[in-house]
């Protein structure tokens, strides 16, 4: 496929797609038109770079293993004014903690989350379920068969991660901050 047409097509696909678009999905759909993964990747990266400028209201970004079309965050107040919607609700400290635990230790149960946080987290987990940031992924085979929770694709998209493993290792974060004092 001609490079010009491919570029236009990629823009069109990302503009009309609901979620992140993976290279595989595009290549599979356009196999007959002779679009290869390398062609797509280089073209989409070129567009992402070309749109990443101050006078553009569109950005291409990677999330959850694909590409998607978003607006720059600094335009949010104007967009909200135009569409007449309130600011999206911030995630509470408790919600962020629960998300951090689920992301780092998944699959994990509510009792395990409660233990790590030292506080009851069931209401928070429910909120996160409602917001599709975590999901139920079976039950743990222990007494009471508690639900196991995992993060969702929506979680990856929201936090701009390709995979859950892309979150930094908390061990490294803490290690750089403080060296353990020698125990007496």
């Amino acid at each position: 496929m001609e490079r010009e047409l491919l570029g236009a097509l990629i823009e069109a696909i990302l503009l009309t797609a609901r979620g992140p678009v993976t290279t595989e999905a595009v290549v599979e759909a356009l196999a007959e038109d002779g679009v290869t993964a390398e062609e797509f990747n280089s073209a989409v990266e070129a567009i992402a770079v070309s749109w990443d400028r101050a006078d553009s209201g569109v950005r291409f970004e990677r999330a959850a293993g694909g590409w998607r079309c978003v607006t720059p965050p600094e335009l949010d107040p104007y967009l909200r004014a135009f569409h007449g919607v309130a600011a999206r609700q911030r995630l509470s400290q408790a919600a962020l903690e629960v998300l951090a635990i689920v992301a780092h230790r998944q699959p994990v149960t509510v009792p395990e989350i409660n233990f790590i946080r030292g506080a009851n987290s069931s209401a928070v987990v429910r909120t996160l379920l409602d917001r599709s940031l975590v999901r139920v992924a079976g039950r743990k085979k222990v007494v009471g068969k508690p639900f196991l929770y995992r993060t969702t694709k929506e979680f990856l998209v929201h936090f701009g991660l390709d995979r859950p493993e892309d979150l930094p290792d908390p061990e490294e974060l803490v290690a750089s901050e403080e060296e353990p004092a020698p125990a007496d």
Partner: protein
Amino acid sequence: MRGQSGTGTGAGTNRHPEAGADPEALDVRPVILTRVNEEQLLVDEATGPPVELGVFSGPLDLLLHLIRQNEVSIYDIPIATICDQFHAHLEAMHELDLEVAGEFLWMASWLLALKSRLLLPRHEDEQEDPRQELVERLLEYRRVKELAAILYEKDVVRRCLWTPGFDAELPPGETELDWEEVDLRLLAKAYLEVMERFAVAHPPPLQLMPLRFRVHDKMREIYERVRGEGLLALLRDLHRRPDVDEVVALFVATLELVRLGAVCAEQGRQFAEIYLRPGPLELDLERLARLDREEAGDGA
């Protein structure tokens, strides 16, 4: 350890007169702070740090805050000091009528237990520091907080991103309904669905009708008529009666009388009239009436 925990922590009460030289130090009133100002965290040895009620997401959060505030190592927590400060926080929470969650009380009692254990002389064979479990819990929780902080930074920026077709994502409650555009057919359909669901959820109650015809009454009626008239055309009689319940009662009564031998039933051929005649058994009407009364008494 502060020795005045019993004197109350009323707002504005000067709990530490000996620190009067420094007016800043007098202010031990609980202060609600959403962000902890590092400048205010310098520990005053005489008074202890002012009680600050930040937004703590749990007892471990408060404990980490106190450890940072006191500039002590997480691996060597001065339990007595931290325990007292923890309790001061709980008291302040009570004063402000904040609901103190159970997990805070649980942590307070754990700290008290640790404090008392540390006061006792340690056994020779006791290798493990009693604080070990608490330290591990705190370290684990601190990792979670670090990760949560990273997620927070991302959330702040990324919840301002918009994507194509965003309006489809808005929950229906937030969109304003244009009444001109409401499809009446859909509205009616929705109404019917709601009513159907309601009907399924609320089946009509079982209605118990009053007992209008008693088999025993009908038995007496037929018996007396058969005895009096000598012959009774049953089907003709039944057809005359409009009430199905009465027909049923009458028919059952007839069967019962035939079974007892009080009346005889004759039928010339199939589907022909059924004639009732007096049977060999003489029915004790008094007894029947008595049975009736007893039955009615049971039912009442």
